[in-house]
């Protein structure tokens, strides 16, 4: 397993849960938040195939991470792939294990932009309970729905 994959597991936790839950008995940490965000983020690209585990989350102010783990049907072995999208002043770089850095362009960049927009839209509402545009707390008024 690559170092990056290990890092992803360290940040997001090994056992996926089926519910976005907020830890109540202790202070919420950045790692908790990333794990909760990733639970929502993993659904942004549609249904997750059987025998797959997916994480998609914002790592920090300039990095998005896609992690996919699956069973290779041909060999029966577990495989994984980590894609890191780094935002730089001159563009977005895609970094994958064993692959040269590549500037993300065109349709792929558009897909990524939409995915991050969806992530923001959904994570802000479901994890932070905030309006995605204003950042204001969602209130108990009829106007919130």
């Amino acid at each position, binding site marked *: 397993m690559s170092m990056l994959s290990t890092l992803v597991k360290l940040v997001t936790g090994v056992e996926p849960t089926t519910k976005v839950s907020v830890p109540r008995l202790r202070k919420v940490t950045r790692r908790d938040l990333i794990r909760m965000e990733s639970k929502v983020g993993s659904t942004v690209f549609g249904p997750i195939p059987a025998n797959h585990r997916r994480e998609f989350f914002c790592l920090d102010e*300039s990095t998005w991470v896609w992690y996919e783990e699956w069973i290779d049907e041909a060999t029966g072995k577990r495989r994984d792939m980590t894609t890191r999208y780094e935002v730089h002043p001159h563009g977005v770089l895609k970094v994958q294990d064993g692959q040269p850095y590549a500037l993300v362009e065109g349709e792929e960049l558009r897909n990524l932009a939409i995915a991050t*927009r969806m992530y923001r839209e959904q994570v802000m509402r479901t994890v932070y309970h905030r309006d995605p545009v*204003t950042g204001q707390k969602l209130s108990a008024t009829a106007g919130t729905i």
Partner: protein
Amino acid sequence: MTPEITGYRPDQAPPSAPKEKLVFTPEQYPHLEFDIRAVAEEQGRTLGADSPEVAEANEAVADAYAAVNAERDEAATRTLEHISTDAELGSSVGANAQTFAILRPMVEQHGFDFDSKSVAEQQGKWNLN
């Protein structure tokens, strides 16, 4: 070259609005949950929390939230339609990441109920477009 994953290529999979009830459940919107038990009480009836009527009402509310949120997702996606250059798209990707770089420390420090004014002060940093 991006490795292909059993029919899924992460860099090409079309983003779509998930409509799973897992994400949009009444439990996540407790202040908006339709309280059918209160309505029944007004009608002189008593409903248990595990009654089929309550479950049915909760499911209907979840469906309504899912529909509303799906519309919001689509609207949010449409806002990208006018963006045509890679520079603008890259900027959008960065701005969305900035949002969480701002939010996380606030939650770590103050919990989820931090003062909205703090967010308002940061709004200039996370405006999209």
